[in-house]
């Protein structure tokens, strides 16, 4: 493992150094399942409400979901970047970076201004993320994922490593399950993370009243199709039609109707049950 840089000499934009308080890194795949994305967002929102500073890497997927969750929870979030702090990568996250700054957060980097995204920057950035945090939570990670580098670095730095379980059918949970098998803390909700941070009981009781359990939004008139859908793995319309012996045109129409109600989501060639978002975005 590359040793972490001198944390007092990081370049930063925004509020830096951050105020005192527990800091948790939420990391995961850049291409998570709908489940992973929802988990990252939900955990970050709940942690932010409990006063935790959420750290992530401003990357696509889980990272962005974590930043967004923290913002919607009204908390401070720090993006640790693999580029100079003056260059937002990926460029599509320009607005997200602005929102982080506007909400009193910070963009930090160990690389000088003007540094472009280079392949070897990111593993070093992952180590920095671990060094800045009190705990690292891995949401979803395939084998060999960059999120696992952060977890490994956290172990070496004697930080808490935690992981979110997933489906045994999902390749995206192979990395997190390996972490749990090797002793990482199991994360089912934000309370698990706060407990691992050694938060006092009163801290745990009060803010967690606000945390909501992950769950499905149940529309008033539930469609029977819903119980055949998963919230982790996508199911195609064709599979549903086959299983239920329904005409495909009817299945498509009902799925679209559910999508319109926000109960299911399209993901690639299939559908998943929509998880309730931390905060319904317009």
């Amino acid at each position, binding site marked *: 493992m590359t040793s972490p840089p001198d944390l007092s000499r990081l370049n930063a934009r925004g509020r830096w150094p951050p105020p005192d308080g527990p800091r948790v890194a939420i990391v995961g795949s850049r*291409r998570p399942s709908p489940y992973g994305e929802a988990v990252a967002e939900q955990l970050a929102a709940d942690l932010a409400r409990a006063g935790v500073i959420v750290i992530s890497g401003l990357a696509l997927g889980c990272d962005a979901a974590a930043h967004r969750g923290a913002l919607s929870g009204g908390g401070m979030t720090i993006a640790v970047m693999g580029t100079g702090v003056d260059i937002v990568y990926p460029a599509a996250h320009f607005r997200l970076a602005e929102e982080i700054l506007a909400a009193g957060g910070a963009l930090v980097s160990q690389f000088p201004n003007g540094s472009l995204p280079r392949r070897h920057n990111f593993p070093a950035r992952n180590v920095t993320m671990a060094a800045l945090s009190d705990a690292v939570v891995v949401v979803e990670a395939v084998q060999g994922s960059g999120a696992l580098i952060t977890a490994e670095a956290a172990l070496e730095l004697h930080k808490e490593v935690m992981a979110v379980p997933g489906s045994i059918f999902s*390749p995206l949970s192979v990395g997190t399950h390996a972490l749990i098998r090797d002793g990482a803390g199991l994360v089912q909700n934000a309370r698990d993370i706060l407990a691992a941070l050694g938060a006092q009981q009163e801290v745990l009781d009060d803010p967690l009243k606000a945390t909501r359990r992950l769950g499905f939004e149940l529309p008033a008139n539930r469609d029977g199709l819903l119980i055949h859908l998963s919230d982790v793995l996508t199911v195609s319309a064709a599979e549903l*039609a086959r299983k239920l012996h329904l005409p495909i045109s009817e299945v498509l129409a009902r799925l679209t109707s559910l999508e319109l109600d926000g109960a299911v989501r399209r993901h690639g060639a*299939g559908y998943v049950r929509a998880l309730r978002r931390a905060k319904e975005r317009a």
Partner: protein
Amino acid sequence: MLATVDSCVLAGLEARRVEVQADSANGEPKFFLVGLAATSVKEARERVRSAIKNSGLTFPGKRLTVNLAPAEMRKTGTALDLAMAVAIALAETGGRVPERSAFLGELALDGAVRHVDGVLVAARCLKKLGYERLFVPAADAEEAALVDGLEVIPCGNVAEVVAHLRGGEQIAPQPLTDAALESSTDVHEHDLAEVHGQEEARRAIEVAAAGGHHLLLSGPPGAGKTMLARCLPGILPPLELSEAFDVAQVRSLLGDLEPGRPIDWTRPFRAPHHGISMAGLIGGGSGYALPGEISRANHGVLFLDELAEFQANVLQALRQPLETGRVTITRSGGSVTYPALFTLVAATNPCPCGWLGDPVRTCRCTPAVVDAYQRRLSGPLLDRIDLQVGVRRVPLSELASEPHGETSAVVRERVLAARARQLARQGCLNAQLRPRRLRNLAALEPGSRHTLERWSERKGLTARGFHRAWRVARTAADLEGAELIADRHVLEALGYRLSDVAA
């Protein structure tokens, strides 16, 4: 003496009349060819001289001038050979060709009349120009005979033609044989009954066939995208006479008609490789452009496999034909317009490695690469594809069992009925309805309008996307025989789009 014989040269699907004048006069034996002849026509001098000599006719031992009028128009090709030979023969011995007759054909050195491309096109145009009789190569006679009201004289060699003209042994006109119009054996390579699973894609193909909608299939390698696409011709109705004639004309220009069976009733299915050039797909060539694959797919299916691998500019060039159903190409010779009214079926992988979104195998592409790959497809081209469907690999357990879907014949019945409804109502397929006609002809039930509007509000549907869903909903209703578009039709139509390829 002077003799005049008519012929023509082709400019796309139009024929330009050419008057071939031959004059033999006293003087040094020489053969002049004037009248803006391109190299291919100048070479005719040698062919014509040998052909006349070897047919037992005499080539004038005088000063011979052949003029191709109008002299300001550039002439290419070998179809003028026969007219030149006849004019020279008549100039030597005297005699006239019958009124309103024209000659087409290339000559061999032994005097035989050889096949030329585009006889069907020439025959149709010459008929329109007022000609009543056409002398064509025997090999192309059946093709020319398809044109109603034109006497077609099949020519084996120059000697026969000259004898016929001088009142010697007459050549019988080519009748329109039943064989020429015979329906082709209705066997299609693929039948929907052979497809395992893929209910969504099967339904999309049925909707595409019924309404003439363009279709995009996106899925991993081996999901059966190509096989699904090849099932489409089998559920389309056979060509109408006028359509078959259109198809034959384009094929005639390219010299691609089957001898003895010029009319083919099956709809064209063209599947060009993704390395194809702009000229190959759209049409091109020097002088006047020749038709490309999109015109060969006229009234049929153009299948573009691996859509993202096609050159970007080639794909962009599809936009105009997709919109208008024809293509206009300008080359040095001038502009020509070819029909290009086809159903586009495109297939693509969701990402370069192909496995994005597969439940079992992991995609190895970085998000940036996936993004770049999908962006190549998005935008104006995708905007014009009404049906967009994700295809998944069928589980092995499913592949091992007997497929239990409907056969192409069953689906085709529904498609034919739906097409008949559309033609009776509006004279064209739903895919060709422009927004204004859509409003007049495709009434939405109040509930279904509400659904469509709610969707555009929530999901930010573009105006084009709005009309796309409306058109597809109309076809879904037609397949059901419904007068009004119900909610379920709109909802189904909205389902045919890919979230990860921009809508």
